[in-house]
């Protein structure tokens, strides 16, 4: 389909230019996917399709708009882009809206990122059903008589993306994705029916764990929530489990974007070069990890990717600044699109850290909550386990943590040795001290 995407992009740019646009940027994506869900040892749903969509950004008379459509019939596309160019001319002038200087397209890495599994086309319907059945069976077996319901799911897709600009950029990426998951609901005291999931996602099929492990993870995690209690409000150390660190860290990341800074909605705006976290916090944006979902040799605007140390031993070094906001701020652009988030792992396991901490909460999930990127205030519900002297005591429910991002990251005490592999946020479990955990 690669040539088909190129032909379509070239046609869209030609229509844009002939309709009066000064410049255009076109992105086209196509995907073929299959999704299968199992429940009660039979398929609950099967979904399969191919999709294609086109987005064109129009720059005309220092004015800007972006349009997307899945109606790619030639006549429709011609009228769609022609009208879009005409309408864009009616907007207010914005001299900061241009395509990036082509010099930022230069220096693209030549690394093979291994994001497409060459065996993708060999995945058969039988192997998909076998994979998802194995997940379900494993979860049912491990969950035993506590099981109320188990849903198992698998998804695989092959996608292609093309980005092309009228000032000389084109970039094509092909990727595959494989996903397996189970969710179990268990019998608990009274009417409580705790549910948890186990899941993994990878770009190369062999990087997925065994389906039996995914099912067992869902069961073990669900059973660990039985008998949850609410504690009295207390100031405690917390360990945030690797797979949910991103849910908490998002509140911090939001303040690192050029838009937040230029729009005066960032608590980090004036903190470059300052210590915003403890020594433990080194945060690297690394787009060059083979097989990782956040990897790419160019970003969403076509600018060549770079590995960047965003925070170095607690000191804020860089922001995520795209081309537009770099011009508004008068700064050098970096990128507006984070790639893989890396925080170097520590040396000890969560279990070892728990032993030393005494009493604390191991947070395995969050509920609701939010973060204010202007002030840094955050408050979020937690799911997890009370531990004492290295041993799990019981799960906790209906509890919450509240803090400010400018303060809590200064109390980051340790990173465990378990970076999470199934996400672009490849961070280990993190330990924070002196956190108010509110309950009764």
């Amino acid at each position, binding site marked *: 389909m690669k040539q088909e995407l190129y032909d379509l992009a070239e046609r869209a740019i030609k229509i844009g230019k002939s309709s009066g646009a000064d410049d255009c940027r076109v992105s086209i994506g196509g995907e073929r996917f299959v999704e299968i869900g199992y429940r009660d040892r039979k398929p*609950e*749903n*099967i*979904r*399969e*399709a191919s999709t294609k969509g086109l987005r064109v950004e129009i720059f005309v008379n220092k004015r800007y*708009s*972006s*349009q*997307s*459509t899945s109606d790619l019939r030639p006549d429709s596309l011609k009228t*769609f882009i022609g*009208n*879009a160019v005409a*309408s864009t001319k*009616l907007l*207010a*002038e*914005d001299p900061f809206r241009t395509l990036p200087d082509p010099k930022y397209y230069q220096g693209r890495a030549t690394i093979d990122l291994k994001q497409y599994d060459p065996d993708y086309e060999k995945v058969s319907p039988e192997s998909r059903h076998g994979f998802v059945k194995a997940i379900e069976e494993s979860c049912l077996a491990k969950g035993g008589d506590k099981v109320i319901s188990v849903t198992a799911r698998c*998804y695989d897709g092959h996608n292609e993306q093309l980005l092309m600009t009228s000032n000389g950029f084109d970039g094509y990426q092909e990727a595959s994705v494989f*996903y397996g998951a189970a*969710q179990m*609901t*268990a019998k608990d005291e009274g*009417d*409580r*029916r*705790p*549910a*948890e*999931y186990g*899941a993994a*996602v990878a770009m190369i099929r062999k990087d997925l764990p065994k389906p039996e492990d995914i099912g067992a993870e869902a069961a073990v995690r669900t059973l660990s929530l039985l008998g949850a209690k*609410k504690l009295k*409000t207390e*100031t405690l150390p917390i360990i945030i489990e690797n797979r949910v660190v991103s849910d908490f860290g998002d509140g911090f990341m939001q303040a690192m974007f050029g838009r937040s800074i230029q*729009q*005066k909605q960032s608590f980090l705006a004036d903190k470059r070069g300052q210590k915003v976290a403890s020594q433990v916090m080194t945060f690297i944006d690394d787009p060059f990890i083979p097989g990782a*979902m956040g990897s790419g040799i160019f970003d969403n605007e076509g600018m060549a990717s770079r590995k960047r140390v965003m925070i170095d031993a607690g000191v804020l070094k860089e922001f995520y600044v795209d081309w537009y906001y770099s011009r*508004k701020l008068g700064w050098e652009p970096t990128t507006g699109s984070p790639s893989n988030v890396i925080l170097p792992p520590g040396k000890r396991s969560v279990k070892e850290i728990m032993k030393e901490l005494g009493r604390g909460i191991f947070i395995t999930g969050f*509920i*609701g*909550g*939010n973060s204010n990127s*202007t*002030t840094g*205030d*955050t408050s*979020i*519900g937690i*799911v997890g386990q009370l531990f004492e002297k290295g041993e799990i005591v019981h799960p906790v*429910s*209906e*509890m*919450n943590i*509240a*803090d400010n991002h400018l303060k809590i990251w200064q109390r980051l005490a340790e990173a465990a040795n378990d970076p999470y592999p199934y996400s672009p946020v490849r961070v280990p479990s993190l330990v924070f001290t002196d956190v108010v955990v*509110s*309950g*009764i």
Partner: protein
Amino acid sequence: MKKITRRDFIKSGATAAAAAMAIPTILSKGWYSFAQAEAAGYFEREFGITEVMCRKVLAEALAKGGDFADLFFEHTISNFLILEDGKVNRAASDVALGVGIRTVKGDQVGYGFTQDLSEKAMLAAASTAATIADAPGKEPAGKFVPLKTKNYYPVTTLFSSVPLDAKLPLVQSVNDKCFALSPSVIKVNVVFHDQQKRILVVTSDGTKAEDLQPKSYIAATVVAEKNGKRERSSWNYGGRQEFSYYTPALAEKLAKRTVDRALVLFDAIQPPAGEMPVVLGPGVSGVLLHEAIGHGMEADFNRKKISTYCTMLGKKVAEPFVTIIDDGTIPHLTGSINFDDEATPGQKTVLVDKGILTSYLHDKISAKFYAVKPTGNGRRESYQQYVIPRMRNTYMLAGKATPEEVIKTAAKGIYVEDVANGQVKIGEGDFAFYVSQGRMIENGKLGAPIKDVNIMGNGPKMLANIIMLANDFEFYEGGAGACGKGGQAAPCGFGQPSALVKSLTVGGVKG
């Protein structure tokens, strides 16, 4: 990264709306027959979709048996106008066109979709859907009878017929009014969104239903600065409204509400942590009703026995003065639907009647399981997804007390004025929601403003712990919100009177 358990309600302010709209605008006129507001015949007229073709595709979907099959055609045009730094300098639009084909066998669903509305492509998608069944083929109905329903959001002027130069001054005026209201205002973002969604549902049992669903909102975000401190506030108005709804008076109201709310935050504190009485203010606090209670009453969760409400049908779940309704028939409200996405007419469903749980929210699959009629809650985000039970407009009826009496009875606790988002764990019933603005209640009166605090609780417990309702019922008038479930977003509305909950956990900063 997919998450199975996440189920949250996002009330997008202008910022979130701008960020969420991944892509694109401004189709002031076009190549489709925009001037024709009537729904009937649209897909045949514009895309050549005939009954003969539909019957053939449905026959393919039932080629291996199955209980029934349906086709869901969609053509949606969404537009955004965005103001930043004083000028409407960005526009975006999106066109979604496609058909989803579903084959249902018991509680099993086969689903295929295509963006290509040719017969060949549709037959291929139908063939995918058919794989869920494994019996001799069935024939769909011989003819399709048009579904007739009331229209809860009649459109006299399509958004695509409203010229851009009529929309631009509206957006600009909100910005100008915000700056005029206070010298502390340093940044304003405004987003105007309009959408017209055309759908055609054709079912194998012989129903054909066409609709034109408008949706729109105007949202403002204000950043204010005072003594070196910054605060941000967002608000929006909208629903299934057409352009005439967006008057200069509404722009004024939006600007005033957004600025006033930003300014009050300079005096706001984070409340102490712990359990305390909570008064949920009228209108927007209905997010909590939606999260903590509504989701647990969606029938798919109960059919699978994973909702905490699955054993409570016919039982007392609240005090006798509590009645909760889910309703698709409120004119122009965000969650209203003339019929749902499997052609069941829009209707009003009483979930809790004077404290007794009387019904779940059903699609066709769960209705068959429970041997009841579908309640018109079968909804989907787009042609790319299959139907699941979803709320429409969920609300709690008013009580008899005055708001002052409710606050006085609470004595000491917090009063919730605005809620940013929430989430529930269906099986446990545990929920959390984020209070972006509220007040302390001290000595039975409203005290200092509060902000940015999470509230935790358990849905069934909270419902049982509603001890007083006021006579100040309001529907939430925003249009920017969307409910997320199973990876699908759907527009939902909500409302409630001031309600006193005996005790909830407030996630404050100190004990």
